[in-house]
């Protein structure tokens, strides 16, 4: 056994994030760590990486007991971690991001030329091509993920921890990553991967450890289990397949006509986009992220000006309307990036749950504190959000739990129109089911939903109509019955439309 974590317990105050967890890793294996949101996966891995100290328990590496008081210790023992949240320096170049901490020097000078060479060599060695001179801020998320992995490889890690690495990747990028992992494992590297996508687990993992409420509920060989068993171990119950009722279309709620937004480099980021969403339907927007979806969402919700065209919500022209006015007309919005747009980390659960309800749940300019508290309590109950209390700061919530809070908040606005951008990003399968059910219920109640997702399965499962975006244009549109994964993938990759 390469690595063993024995009887690890970690408490934060009176919250137990890990309770007597045993975990082991073999040389050259890919070990998946799965579990509900807040089950304690990230915490366990942060302990292994020296970012947290366990309250009890010990770690054995090659049979020898080790203690990591900070990441440097872990790195020295050839353990590397790719975090759930990027740990990159956006204004630095790719090469700088990879070599930082162990920079090539000539004298006191940071030899950037050599860094670029080393990174190029590294890329070649592991067959992970990337332009080392680009600024990280300018490269797509998939590439940023690659930078993180290269960074760990550069540090010489033999044990590589990946915390939800495919969370923001496109299906294609995710597939690529899995291939890379398998290659590296064959070269002797060992992986721990945290993911909520059980099909990925089945595809890549050799072994699986399941956590629930900070305890291990199972350690299995991947070959000897299936998605159903895993999800039962995770959630503690069977998951019911979601049923989708027939569409009952109402009037047009959102009308987008010839909308264009000019980008910085003369190339439009949105190019004459037209579509509509009717009451009672879910329109899914598929596409590799970075093809104009973000701009489209922001334009509709009033966060970005459009250069050309017209957007109407319930017949109202949104030109020149503020976010607030648009929300008053009838918009609710699950944003694609929960930390940037969706939440105030320093705010409490209550404060974050209040946004958007603060004007409606008020009297004469005063917030109705009691009602708001009850409402947020409702969110917590309904979505089983694990939060210490309503007054806990949101920054202490696990990613998935925050996502649930945001979805709950926006659905509760009860607006005729909902933008749901990556609504299940980072949430566990149980919560995903719940969110999907809620979205479908909203549709059945004659709500209009624009679903933007990089998860093709999600798009196919929920949408009544699917639009594919490519380079700021609509590459194709197809109804759910006629949609096939192949067709959509082709459009997403820029293939010619024959619709």
């Amino acid at each position: 056994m390469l690595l063993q974590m024995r009887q690890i317990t970690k408490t934060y105050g009176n919250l137990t994030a890990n309770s007597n967890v045993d975990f082991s890793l073999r040389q050259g294996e890919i070990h998946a760590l799965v579990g509900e949101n807040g089950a304690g996966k990230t915490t366990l891995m942060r302990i292994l990486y020296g970012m947290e100290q366990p309250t009890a328990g010990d770690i054995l590496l090659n049979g020898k007991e080790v203690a990591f008081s900070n990441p440097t210790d872990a790195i020295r023992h050839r353990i590397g971690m790719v975090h759930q949240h990027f740990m990159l320096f956006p204004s630095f170049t790719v090469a700088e991001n990879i070599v930082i901490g162990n920079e090539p020097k000539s004298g006191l000078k940071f030899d950037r030329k050599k860094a670029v060479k080393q990174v190029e060599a590294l890329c070649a060695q592991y067959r992970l091509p990337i332009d080392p001179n680009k600024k990280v801020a300018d490269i797509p998320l998939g590439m940023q993920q690659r930078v993180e992995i290269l960074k760990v490889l550069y540090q010489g890690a033999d044990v590589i921890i990946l915390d939800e690495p495919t969370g923001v990747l496109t299906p294609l990028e995710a597939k690529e990553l899995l291939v890379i992992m398998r290659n590296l494992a064959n070269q002797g590297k060992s992986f721990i991967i945290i993911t909520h996508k059980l099909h990925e687990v089945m595809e890549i993992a050799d072994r699986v450890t399941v956590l629930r409420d900070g305890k291990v509920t199972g350690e299995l060989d991947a070959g000897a289990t299936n998605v159903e068993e895993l999800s039962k171990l995770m959630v503690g119950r069977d998951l019911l397949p979601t049923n989708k009722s027939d569409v009952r279309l109402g009037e047009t709620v959102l009308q987008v006509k010839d909308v264009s937004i000019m980008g910085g480099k003369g190339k439009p980021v949105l190019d004459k986009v037209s579509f509509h969403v009717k009451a009672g339907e879910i329109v899914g927007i598929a596409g590799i992220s970075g093809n104009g979806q973000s701009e489209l969402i922001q334009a509709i919700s009033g966060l970005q000006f459009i250069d050309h065209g017209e957007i109407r919500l319930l017949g109202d022209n949104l030109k020149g309307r503020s976010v607030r006015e648009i929300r008053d007309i009838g918009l609710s919005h699950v944003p694609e990036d929960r930390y940037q747009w969706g939440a105030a980390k320093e705010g409490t659960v209550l404060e974050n749950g209040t946004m958007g309800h603060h004007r409606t749940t008020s009297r004469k300019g005063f917030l109705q504190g009691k009602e708001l508290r009850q409402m947020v309590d409702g969110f917590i109950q309904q979505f089983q959000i694990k939060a210490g209390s309503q007054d806990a700061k949101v920054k202490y919530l696990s990613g998935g739990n925050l996502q649930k809070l945001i979805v709950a908040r926006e659905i509760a606005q009860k607006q005729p129109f909902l933008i749901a951008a990556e609504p299940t990003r980072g949430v566990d399968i149980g919560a995903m089911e719940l969110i999907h059910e809620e979205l479908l219920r909203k549709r059945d109640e004659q709500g209009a939903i624009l679903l933007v997702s990089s998860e093709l399965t999600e798009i196919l499962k929920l949408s009544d109509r699917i639009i594919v975006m490519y380079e700021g244009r609509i590459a194709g549109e197809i109804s759910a019955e006629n949609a096939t994964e192949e067709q959509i993938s082709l459009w997403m990759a820029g293939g010619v439309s024959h619709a």
Partner: protein
Amino acid sequence: MLKSRFPISAWVQPLLAVIIGLIGGAIAISLIGGSVIDTYAQMWKGAFGNFFFITNTLTRATPLILVGLGVSIAFRAGFFNMGSEGQMILGALSSAMIAIYLPGPALFKLLAAILGGIIAGGIWSAFAGWLDAKFRMNLIITTLLMNYIAALFAGYMVAYPFKDKTGSAALAQTMMIEKGVWLPKLFQGMSIHGGFIIAIALAVLLYLFVKYTVAGYEIRMLGYNPLFAGYGGVNRGKVMLASMFASGGFAGLAGAIEVLGMQYRYTDGMITNPGYAWSGIMATLLSGAHPLGTAIAAVLLAALQTGGMGVERNTSIPLEISSVIQSLLILFVTAKFSYTLWKRRKGGKGDAASS
């Protein structure tokens, strides 16, 4: 679990800090051969020794509270207003001019002078906000620079066109305001005046405003994360102008009240020399921009100052050392002792982003 941790550090921490601050001060005192106990006794006496000294301390706290409240509004909205000094100066100057030159009954003049002070301070501050919103000029720099401009402008006004030509006429100051327009003193023969009541009332109102109103909520969210606020329909530009206006308005009010309640005229340097603005900013930061906390911190800072004066009057400790003790106390009061110690004991590390 977060709940259970909070009250411990909330009480232990400032207490410990004060104790360590006092020990630090004691070292300074004994280094120069003073009596520690006597010095602290005099300090306490100078600040809270009897009713007279208590009111003295509260008088001194009045402008600090108001300035601190102003800074805290902007701070809550995410803007660092370092321009309280200039805003206070313009507020003081305008209210003095209104009180002197506006015709009409006394009460009307008093109200107009207060309002004038608020508006002058508010506009000066909102102008900096506008420069930020419109031209992306860094608010910290603009507000800092505008302090100098305001001070020089006010200095010119009272050295030349509106100089007091009665009396010795040697100081750059306006004429004295007629007695009817003065803010009433609360007690005969004591310096405390109506401004203190205004300051405390505003601290409570601001606390209620920030905590319970829709606008207060929007301001807080903007301060936490402007993107989140924008997404939720908060207009950053508008809230910025409004909160900067309010912030400067409070500073302007502080200036007006210092004129109408204490000095009864605007004198060049009356705002800058006592360092009201800096103390106000400190009060805000010490309290984490909590309005009631700001008021308490302001009283604490004022007590350190009046206590220092007591030390100066009644011991052989030189004036300079009492200012050293003051700054030492402040330094340690801000330090997070218990928290750090707690962390050490736990062996835990900082609160890096958790997911």
